[in-house]
C-alpha cells in the first residue's frame, strides 16, 4: 500500500526528531519558578485582607456617628439671617 508507505516514512522521520538538550533544564527552572510564585502570593493576600479590614472598620465607625437633629440645625446657616445680607440681595434692594 503506497499510502501506508508514505505515512510510515513521515512518521519514522518525525520519530527521529530529537528535542533540545536544554529542555530538562527549562522544565526544572519552570517548576522552581512556579513553586516560588505560590509562596509569594501570601504577602499579597495579607495586604489585600488588611486593606479590606481597615475599610470595613472605617465604614462601621462612620456609621456610629449620628448627628442629633437640634445640633444639626444649629450648624446649618440660614443665609437670610446673616446680618446686612439685604444690602447684597436684589430682592430687597430699593
Amino acid at each position, binding site marked *: *500500500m*503506497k*499510502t501506508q508507505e*508514505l*505515512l510510515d*516514512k*513521515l*512518521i519514522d*522521520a*518525525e*520519530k*527521529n*526528531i530529537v*528535542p*533540545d538538550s536544554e*529542555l*530538562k533544564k*527549562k*522544565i*526544572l527552572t*519552570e*517548576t522552581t519558578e*512556579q513553586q516560588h510564585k505560590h509562596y509569594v502570593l501570601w504577602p499579597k493576600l495579607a495586604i489585600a485582607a488588611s486593606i479590606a479590614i481597615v475599610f470595613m472598620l472605617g465604614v462601621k465607625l462612620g456609621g456610629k456617628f449620628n448627628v442629633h437633629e437640634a445640633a444639626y440645625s444649629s450648624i446649618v446657616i440660614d443665609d437670610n439671617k446673616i446680618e446686612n445680607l439685604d444690602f447684597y440681595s436684589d430682592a430687597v434692594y430699593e
Partner: protein
Amino acid sequence: MQDSELIENILNGKTQYFEVLIDKYQPAVFLTAIGFVHVKEDAEDIVQEVFVKVYQSLAGFKGDASFSTWLYRITVNVSLNHLNRNKFRLLIGFTDNLLHHENRYSEDLNPADEIIGNENARIIRKAIDSLPDKQRTAFVLSKYEDMPQKQIAEILQVTEGAVEQLLQRAKQSLQKKLKHLVGK
C-alpha cells in the same frame, strides 16, 4: 526505581527524583507531542507544560491507573489544548505562507520533508490533523508510540474494541484523503 517510589520521594521533598522522572519519561512525552504538532519547538513547549502540570498535580495522583497512563492522559490533553489555542496562529501561518514568509513547517525544521517532499509531507500532516480528536489520539499513540491497543484503551478510557474501531476509521479516512498522492 519504580514509579511509585519515585513519586513518594518527590512528595517527601526529595525533588532531585523529579529529574529522574523527567529523564525516564521525557522521550515518550516528546514523541507523543510530535505526533500531534509535528514541529520540534511546539513539542518542546508541550513537554514543558506537561511536566509542570505533573509536578503541580503529583500530590493528587491517586494511583487508580498507572503513572504512565496518567502521564499520557495529561500529554494528550495538553497537546489537544495546544492545538486549539494555536488555531488562530495557524491561520496567521497560512497567511504568512501566502506572503512567502518563513513558517514553522519549513524544510529546515522537519526532516520528513526532505525524505518525502515538502508538499507531500504537508498534505499528509494536514490529513492526520483533520482526524477527529479521539481517532487522532489513537492513531498517534499507536503509530508514534507503538503502543498496544490495551494501553491506548486505558489512556482513552474506552474498550479495546473501541480503540480498534478508532484506528480502522483513522486508517480509512487517511487512505481516502491521501489516495491522490499514490503514484506521484
